[in-house]
């Protein structure tokens, strides 16, 4: 892949990502917004691949696809909306947010262009993914040690918030009631 083609491809993907991003907020249907977001993420994942971060790129793409699926299920379950039709434009103070967004873009973009970025320090390892593995298990082990309780606490916190009924509602105060009293009949051992 020659430099020129690579640049064109990269910019293309960038344009796709930004266009999809804008589309997310312009469409009036939640479903289309979700698909636009997925497209934007895939584009970003691809761009990351361009930057030789294969592992991270693939992870981003896969994760985003799964998340979009969850979001779709979520909207149907809760919003009770037919993903296709629901016209909604619940927007407020459009002008101020547009102003702030443009301002942010100008500042960050301008900064990106004008700042005398230093030159690269040190060469990338031959096998990036392997070096990542060593870093995770080596110098940055504590980061991973801390990420695990983060995920654990996310699970606990999310369930505490989301679940309307706890174990005592299902199995009684002394947790002895069998079969469990669930709103939906059926399930194992019934």
């Amino acid at each position, binding site marked *: 892949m020659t430099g020129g083609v690579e640049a064109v491809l990269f910019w293309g993907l960038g344009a796709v990502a*930004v266009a999809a991003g804008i589309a997310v907020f312009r469409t009036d249907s939640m479903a289309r917004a979700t698909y636009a977001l997925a497209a934007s993420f895939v584009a*970003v994942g691809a761009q990351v691949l361009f930057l030789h971060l294969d592992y991270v790129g693939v992870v981003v793409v896969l994760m985003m696809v799964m998340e979009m699926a969850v979001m779709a299920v979520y909207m149907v379950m809760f919003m009770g909306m037919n993903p296709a039709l629901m016209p909604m434009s*619940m927007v407020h103070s459009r002008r101020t947010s547009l102003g702030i967004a443009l301002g942010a873009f100008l500042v960050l973009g301008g900064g990106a262009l004008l700042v005398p*970025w230093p030159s690269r320090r040190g060469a990338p390892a031959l096998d990036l993914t392997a*070096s*990542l593995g060593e870093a995770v298990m080596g110098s940055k082990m504590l980061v991973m040690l801390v990420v695990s309780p983060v*995920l654990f606490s996310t699970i606990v916190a999310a369930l505490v918030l989301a679940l309307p009924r706890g174990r005592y509602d299902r199995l009684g105060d002394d947790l002895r009631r069998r079969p469990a009293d669930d709103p939906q009949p059926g399930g194992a051992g019934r």
Partner: protein
Amino acid sequence: MTLQAVLVIAAALFAVGLYGAISQQVLVMVMMGLELMVNAVILAAAGLWWFLAPTPDGHVLLLVVVAAMTVEMAMGFAVATVLHRSRGSDMTDMSTDLKR
């Protein structure tokens, strides 16, 4: 493609995300805006890492960012659920009892 290009695209994405986060009323849409901003951060981090300091430690940062995104989204859905259940609607503008 140069660092500036990557950063400009990232800035654009960030701006769009910010616009969405501020202008949208529905919590889920606000979360989408936040996700776009995280995406911009991932892209910027990748660019910066590649063009400035491709060290393995920097690489771990990207993993952390991705992990942070997933955790925030998970919590976002949980908050949306509890908001929906206890207040009947997940519009941020509808829940303004706590003020002044």
